[in-house]
């Protein structure tokens, strides 16, 4: 007996009603909004029996479907419709179909238990349970027993492989699992288990291989083909996805397969711009047009896919027709305001401004808070109307009527300001008066200042003063004595707004340095606000906080102008003495501590702030840019490991989300998740940490006299280069509130964030290419003969590295010295000691080894001499540096000088690894040819000796530096800091490198 089972997972009353109505041909049922209530209230499952002889019309039978209902031959079921609302046990499906042909949300488990109560399953049950509960060791023992008893039981062997992999016994697991890729005759359960296993082992291409073999044997198996499709999804092979999906649609003409195919074609278009408009997108459109003609669109996701294709083709006219037609109705339930928002966007793209205006007004009247539509409306009116003045008047009248209807809404007021700004030349109302009106109504809102800032940015001095005076007039506050809060929160919030605007608009920083009035007055405000708002909720920003931050900013301005570090010291003290817990204060301290090199303090605050998971991407820079260069190597490695773990796991997980989106036909989500994946992969933080971690590994893993050839350097994907242009900046550089006016303040006169990003990219490119070339070189020399292909790759990477240095030189002129500005990128320090030339020289030395051992001794001598000279010259520059700054109040670490020293130690460590390569090559040469042996050894001995001398001198320099300031540790009087000896880890590293160099047998 065969059934046609339709399973629907629907969520809206209307979509269920429509679908059922279509299915039963409109007979007998009236589904309304109440229909869905009925369904989910009374029934767990309903099934409809059109051929039930006892009834003359289709009916719904209440109750849970049992195995007997379905299996009983007396029921004579031809078609079975199961409406699957929310929470239904899945055993009914097992009963009806014997297996899950499709993913069943109620029984998601990994690994998937094979369905049915077979002998094999009974034998494996305990093993499954052990693995599922994480008891890997007993699982391995149990698997061994099973394999011994039933050697033909493939599943037991695979499960043993899984248990071994999960016990971190990777080599043993791979030995068991990988041969299965070549097996031809695998059962369904074995295939499922291998999928789980290969996925964990990150061998997704093997999943494709096993399912390709299985499909070859059963080309018409729907299950195997759908698994093969998912396997292609995992490796991102869109062409194969398309082939399999349309093949599936042929053998089982089900709607999802059709859309899988269309989506696969669409994805090819996304990644092949050349053929997108000529081949892929028209193909998608043709297929979807056909479906449209057949009136065969059912779900909102399907219609959304159609819209996505049309958007990509810029066919907005068809897209508008769809939204206005019956298919638009399908979308209405999917997302609030989806249809109208899309109509606005499409008409805007077509420059149909009259339609945009009509739709925007219609939408704004219903949703007065949708500010983006105010902006669109204003732009559209400006574009459409030649008579700007009357257009301005119309819009002003519209916003004023909205204001009357919604007196508590900010948007009409904000709309008027945006309007005046947009229609500058034709505006009859001064912007200052509109800002004043906005201030009177909403000046107490915390967002007031942030909203108003871009509009007042270009105010002249006169306008600024006029605005400030008009705002101050509205408040009863004694500006001379700074008193009058009277515990009125709204009033104090308005003061905040005025003070912030004043700090932003009035450029009196130079005068403030001479007079401490500002700091004193605002300090009074801090203590007044603390006293007057003692019971303020902890989870809100305390009214005193903004006053304190204004004080701190002013002290930092003074530091920038005078370079007197006493101001930094005062700023830190004020922040530390503030008794109220606040993220802004903590962040300010974190940035200041890193600015003066107090790594121990940074770590302590960083841990309190709990910057982890998603925050790595946006705020990781606050630590990543400092810890390594400030000599806190152990913490840097810990931090890098945590960051890399987050990124690698997240990137891997996105694939599973994409697969599930295919399974459930949520096509718009597929692209959104792919965008997320790409954005994670291109994250500046991720790529930076990846390259810096490799450099640290290379330096540290050789510090126990371990051979560089024994290192596991497989983490880097040598096939791929970082496409530096694709790198995305996700750093939140505005996490700290600042009041600097870009047009006036010197330090922010350029687009600092963009400059900082360009610097970061140049630095990343240089570091990545160097480490890649270095690792290829080591891999190249690990083998006894030099692989020409590998050498080719090394040469091209070395050339790219040299090119990247040119860019680095260009960037080095850009600098920022503000503690709250974008974080440092140590170009100047790097170039000051000629690290670029030293690194270049290392790669060129490797390059000479192409014809090893037949190399030109003269050339090698030249490279060794150049290296020695470069190092000696770099060290002589370091010798002239002061590591500590000293003045009457505090002693800080001189961060730029310390970073220079750290970079020197870095190249020093790398050079010692270069020496090791030669030592190993010489030891091989010893047994083959003696031709150049003695001469090369002599040169090598000389350079090692030179390095050792430099290392010893560096240690003595560190010691001397501390003695000179007569301080073993940094000291900040009045500040509560537990200082860390920044030089300690650096000394340790140098000592270990010296031991490493001494271990070479020369």
């Amino acid at each position, binding site marked *: 007996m065969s059934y*046609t089972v*339709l*399973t629907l*997972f*629907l*969520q*809206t009353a209307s*979509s269920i009603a429509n679908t059922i109505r279509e299915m039963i041909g409109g007979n007998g049922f009236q589904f309304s909004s109440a229909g869905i*209530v009925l369904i*989910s209230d009374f029934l767990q499952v309903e099934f409809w029996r059109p051929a039930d002889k006892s009834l003359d019309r289709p009916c719904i039978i209440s109750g849970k479907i049992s195995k007997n209902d379905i299996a009983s031959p007396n029921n004579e079921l031809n078609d079975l419709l199961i409406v699957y609302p*929310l*929470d239904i046990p899945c055993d009914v499906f097992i009963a009806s179909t014997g297996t899950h042909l*499709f993913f069943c*949300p109620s029984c*998601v488990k990994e690994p998937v238990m094979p369905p049915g109560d077979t002998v094999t399953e009974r034998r494996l049950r305990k093993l499954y349970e052990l693995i599922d509960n994480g008891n890997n060791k007993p699982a391995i023992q149990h698997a061994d027993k099973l394999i011994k008893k039933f050697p033909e039981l493939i599943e037991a062997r695979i499960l043993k492989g899984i248990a071994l992999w999960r016990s971190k016994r990777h080599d043993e697991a791979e030995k068991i699992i990988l041969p299965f890729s070549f097996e031809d005759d695998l059962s369904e359960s074995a295939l499922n288990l291998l999928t789980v296993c290969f996925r964990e082992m990150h061998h997704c291409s093997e999943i494709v291989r096993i399912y390709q073999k299985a499909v070859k044997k059963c080309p018409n198996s729907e299950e195997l083909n759908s698994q093969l499709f998912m396997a292609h999804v995992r490796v991102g092979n869109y062409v194969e996805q398309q082939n399999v999906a349309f093949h599936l649609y042929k053998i089982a003409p089900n*709607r*999802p397969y059709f859309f899988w195919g269309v989506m696969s074609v669409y994805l090819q278009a996304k990644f092949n711009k050349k053929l997108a408009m000529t081949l892929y997108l028209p193909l998608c459109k043709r297929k979807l047009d056909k479906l449209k003609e057949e009136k065969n669109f059912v*779900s909102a996701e399907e219609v959304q896919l159609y819209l996505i294709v049309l958007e990509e083709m810029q066919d907005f006219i068809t897209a508008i027709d769809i939204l206005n037609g019956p298919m638009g109705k399908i979308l209405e*339930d*999917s*997302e*609030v305001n989806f249809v109208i928002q899309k109509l606005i966007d499409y008409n805007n793209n077509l420059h149909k401004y009259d339609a945009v205006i009509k739709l925007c007004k219609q939408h704004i009247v219903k949703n007065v*808070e*949708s*500010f*983006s539509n105010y902006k669109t409306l204003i732009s559209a009116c400006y574009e459409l109307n030649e008579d700007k003045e009357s257009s301005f008047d119309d819009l002003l009248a519209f916003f004023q009527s909205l204001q009357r209807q919604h007196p508590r809404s900010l948007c009409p007021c*904000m709309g008027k300001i945006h309007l005046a700004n947009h229609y500058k030349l034709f505006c009859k109302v001064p912007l200052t008066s509109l800002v004043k009106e906005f201030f009177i109504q909403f000046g107490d*809102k*915390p*967002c007031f200042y*942030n*909203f108003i800032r871009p509009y007042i940015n270009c105010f002249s001095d006169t306008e600024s003063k006029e605005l400030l005076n008009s705002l101050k007039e509205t408040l009863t506050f004694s500006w001379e004595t700074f008193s009058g809060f009277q515990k009125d929160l709204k009033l104090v919030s308005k003061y905040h707004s005025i003070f912030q605007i004043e700090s932003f608009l009035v450029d009196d920083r130079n005068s403030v340095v001479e007079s401490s009035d500002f700091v004193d007055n605002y300090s009074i405000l801090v203590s007044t606000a603390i006293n007057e708002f003692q019971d303020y909720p902890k*989870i*809100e*920003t305390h009214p005193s906080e903004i006053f304190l931050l204004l004080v701190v900013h002013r002290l930092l301005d003074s530091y920038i102008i005078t370079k007197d570090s006493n101001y930094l010291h005062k700023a830190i003290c004020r922040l530390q003495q503030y008794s109220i817990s606040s*993220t802004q204060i903590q962040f300010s301290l974190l940035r200041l501590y890193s600015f003066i090199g107090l790594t121990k303090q940074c770590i302590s605050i960083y841990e309190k*702030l*709990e910057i982890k*998971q*998603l*925050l790595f*991407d*946006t*705020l990781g820079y606050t630590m990543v840019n400092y810890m390594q260069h400030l000599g806190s190597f152990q913490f840097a490695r810990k931090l890098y490991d945590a960051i890399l773990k987050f990124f690698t796991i997240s990137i891997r*997980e996105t694939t599973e*989300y994409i697969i*599930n*989106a295919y*399974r*459930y*036909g*949520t096509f718009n*989500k597929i692209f959104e*998740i792919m*965008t*997320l994946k790409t*954005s994670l992969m291109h994250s500046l933080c991720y790529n930076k940490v990846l390259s810096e971690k490799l450099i640290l590994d290379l330096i540290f893993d050789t510090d126990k006299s371990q051979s560089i050839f024994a290192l596991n350097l497989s983490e880097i994907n040598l096939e791929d280069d970082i496409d530096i242009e694709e790198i995305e900046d*996700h750093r*939140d550089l505005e*996490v700290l509130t600042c009041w600097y006016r870009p047009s006036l303040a010197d330090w922010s006169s350029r687009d600092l964030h963009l400059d900082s990003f360009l610097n970061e990219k140049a630095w990343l490119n240089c570091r990545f290419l160097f480490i890649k070339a270095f690792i290829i070189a080591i891999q190249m020399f690990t083998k006894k003969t030099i692989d020409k292909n590998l050498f080719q790759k090394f040469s091209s990477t070395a050339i790219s590295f040299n090119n990247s240095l040119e860019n680095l030189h260009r960037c080095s002129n850009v600098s920022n010295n503000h503690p709250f500005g974008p974080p440092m990128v140590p170009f100047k320090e790097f170039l000051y000691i000629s690290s670029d030339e030293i690194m270049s020289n290392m790669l060129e030395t490797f390059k000479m080894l192409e014809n090893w051992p037949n190399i030109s001794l003269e050339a090698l001598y030249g490279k060794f001499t150049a290296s020695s000279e470069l190092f000696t010259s770099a060290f002589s520059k370091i010798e002239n540096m002061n590591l500590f700054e000293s003045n009457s109040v505090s002693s800080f670490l001189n961060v730029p000088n310390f970073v220079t020293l750290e970079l020197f130690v870095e190249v020093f460590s790398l050079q010692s690894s270069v020496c090791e390569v030669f030592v190993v090559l010489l030891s091989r040469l010893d047994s083959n040819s003696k031709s150049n042996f003695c001469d090369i050894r002599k040169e090598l001995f000389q350079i090692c000796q030179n390095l050792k001398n430099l290392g010893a001198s560096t240690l003595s320099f560190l010691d001397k530096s501390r003695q000179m300031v007569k301080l073993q540790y940094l000291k900040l009087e009045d500040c509560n800091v537990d200082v860390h000896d920044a030089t300690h880890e650096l000394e340790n590293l140098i000592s270990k490198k010296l031991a490493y160099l001494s271990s070479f047998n020369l």
Partner: protein
Amino acid sequence: MNIRHARPDDLMNMQHCNLQCLPENYQMKYYLYHGLSWPQLSYVACDSDGRVVGYVLAKMEEDPDDQVPHGHITSLAVKRSHRRLGLARKLMDQSARAMRECFNAKYVSLHVRVSNRAALSLYKHNLGFEVSDIEAKYYGDGEDAFAMRRSLVGFENDPSANEEEDKDLLNIVSRNYLDCVLLKTVIIVKFRINVYI
């Protein structure tokens, strides 16, 4: 201020909203679990430049003890810089409306720390929630939680009771978070599926 559905690429900015208010630091899969399983229920609030300044993360209770379909507010936060604009209420209303329309939810529940008087007051007085239970040691640090409920019957007809300001940050963390982080990589998606067998 715009309220729109949350998308996967909003995750970083949603987490940022927590930086200054919630002690929680969610994993990506936690957001995606909600966002992909019940995409209709989670919303973000954006400022005039389109930056995310608040969010609500919500779900349907998967296995309700009382067998009554209902929604659950897992997390809700508004940046301090954008408080007192009624954003929390708007986010909550949008989510509640979607719970009602899409899943026929009868009520929406949430948990709040017993010490969070400000949030408690907001739920009670502005958003129509009532305390239904006290859950002992609900939070990781041992603090008790008030379990609160708001009926959604008839909500679609009168979605917005008033336009008062949010007085405070909403600080909600669901215990289900712990369950969620234990979920393996497979994410359950239960909506809008057409599968023919």
